[in-house]
């Protein structure tokens, strides 16, 4: 298996603070890959760098062999890497269906004039987008909510909506920022099954940040552990969890 995402020597400084330091990564195509680490260890910053929200101070990011370092976020999405957020960023006063449809936006050809004139090609395209979006909602068991204002959905459904929205951009790499945050054990179990299913049905590679060790051990095939922006371990979840350096980072010196 080749690497779908490759990061080489990535460093990011906020002023004098090195938030991410000499970060190297190879996510194999088709994998479910985990990035873990204590609070403030630089996980979300790493995601923000990969998805173009920040530009790294040093280093390169390669997606499917193409250099995407410093590209604008929407370009990276259009190239095939989509993400979700730890603190949800749903389009609250749009309908659930429109949340999905807007993510299909860049693949539609109808621009201003076709949309305003409501041409036959525009209508065909709208019908196709609608159908696909409804199918995606059905997969997430949200089809009954299609016309509701998104902000009225309960938390667990919002999480699924965000994953559905990311999938609607037709990604080959899906980055999930703490997908199990704030979920109860039942929801966590459902989520794990969902992520595995999404990987198989959509043929995406999943790269996720997670605090929940159960999720990491349950579905990740490989994990990387970072602390203070530095990589401290990498390998299979079980072996990594026994690594003394990892235990130290999570539990302090005496815990190890």
């Amino acid at each position, binding site marked *: 298996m080749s690497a779908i995402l490759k990061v080489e020597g990535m460093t990011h400084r906020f002023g004098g603070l090195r938030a991410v330091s000499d970060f190297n990564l190879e996510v194999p195509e088709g994998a479910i890959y985990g990035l873990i680490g204590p609070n403030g260890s630089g996980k979300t910053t790493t995601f923000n760098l990969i998805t173009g929200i920040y530009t790294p101070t040093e280093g390169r990011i390669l997606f499917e062999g193409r250099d995407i370092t410093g590209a604008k976020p929407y370009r990276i999405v259009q190239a095939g890497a989509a993400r979700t957020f730890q603190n949800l960023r749903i389009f609250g006063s749009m309908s659930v269906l429109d949340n999905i449809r807007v993510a299909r936006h860049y693949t539609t050809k*109808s621009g201003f004039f076709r949309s305003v004139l409501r041409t036959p090609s525009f209508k065909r395209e709208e019908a196709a987008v609608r159908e696909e979006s409804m199918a995606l909602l059905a997969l997430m068991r949200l089809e009954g909510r299609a016309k509701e*204002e998104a902000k009225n959905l309960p938390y667990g459904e919002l999480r699924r909506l965000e994953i559905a929205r990311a999938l*609607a951009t037709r990604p080959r790499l899906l980055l999930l920022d703490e997908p199990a945050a704030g979920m109860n054990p039942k929801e966590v179990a459902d989520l794990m099954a969902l992520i595995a299913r999404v990987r198989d049905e959509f043929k995406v590679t999943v790269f996720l940040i997670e605090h929940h060790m159960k999720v990491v051990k349950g579905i990740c095939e490989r994990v990387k552990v970072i602390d203070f922006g530095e990589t401290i371990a990498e390998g299979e979840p079980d072996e990594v969890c026994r690594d003394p350096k990892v235990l130290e980072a999570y539990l302090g010196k005496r815990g190890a």
Partner: protein
Amino acid sequence: MGNFRIPKLALSALALFVVVGGLSLAGVLNGYIVHIVNLSLIYVILAVSLNLINGITGQFSLGHMGFAAVGAYASGAVTTLVFRLQPGTASGYAVFVGAIVLGGLAAAAVGFLIGFPSLRLKGDYLAIVTLGFGEIIRTILNNIPAVGGPRGLLGIPKFSGFGVILLAALAALVVIRNLIESSPGRAMLAIRENELAAELVGVDTTKYKVLAFMVGAFFAGVAGGLLAHLLQMAHPTQFGFMGSVLVLIMVYSGGVGSLTGSVVAAFALTFLSEVLRIVIDAAAGATGLPIGGEWRMVVYALLLILIMLYRTEGLMGTRESKLVLLGEDKP
């Protein structure tokens, strides 16, 4: 399936046309009332197009009248200075329509020009830049002798009438409504909701903000052109900051994001303005206090404060009347 409601909107416009036209022919409505209806419809165009920028796309623009000024002067220059048209001929009317469209395009071009540098700014900063833009336009017009300088561009032929203004208002409504209920429109709404998330579902946010500014500016330019050919003049002070604020009040009192609200508020506030003119004059006469027409702005400002305190979402919120909406998928 969506299209069967377009005739509904056209039908209500036709009904308005028949009622106003019929009543004024029958002598029930005098020229003054028809004039106020015309002004209201011009404000409908201004409010609906500003709503696309402020309400739908969530960008705070304070310089909408600047675009209207560009349209007014550009179209006025064509009909008055270039062609020296007189009303009444069919060919003259064709040139007038062309000049109005040209005025809109000129405004859209200006929208494009100010769009690119300023749309990297957000919120308050964008508001300040657009405010500055409006003032710059006004000052430039004040200092070009060819278009009358501070005297304004006078002697513009009276081509605007109820029919053409109604058609233009209808066109603005249909175009902006169709835009909202389409892929580009959803991209604009997503920018309003959460710009970063919009970018991360693949929306080129700069492109759609500029598009919103250009479409909004186009219709503002058309409105400005129609106004100039209604009042038979274009004057720098017509298009000042207070004018932009008035349109802004219409958008916010009608409901940010609701085209229906903008239409209702444009009519209500234009008529209110005339009522206030009479009431304030009467009050000044009765009490001997030195108050004049400009006190209307005090009432508007109070209205805006009350709306912000007690009904932040405006008259309609984001809801739309079934007349305006295509909307099979709205919540």
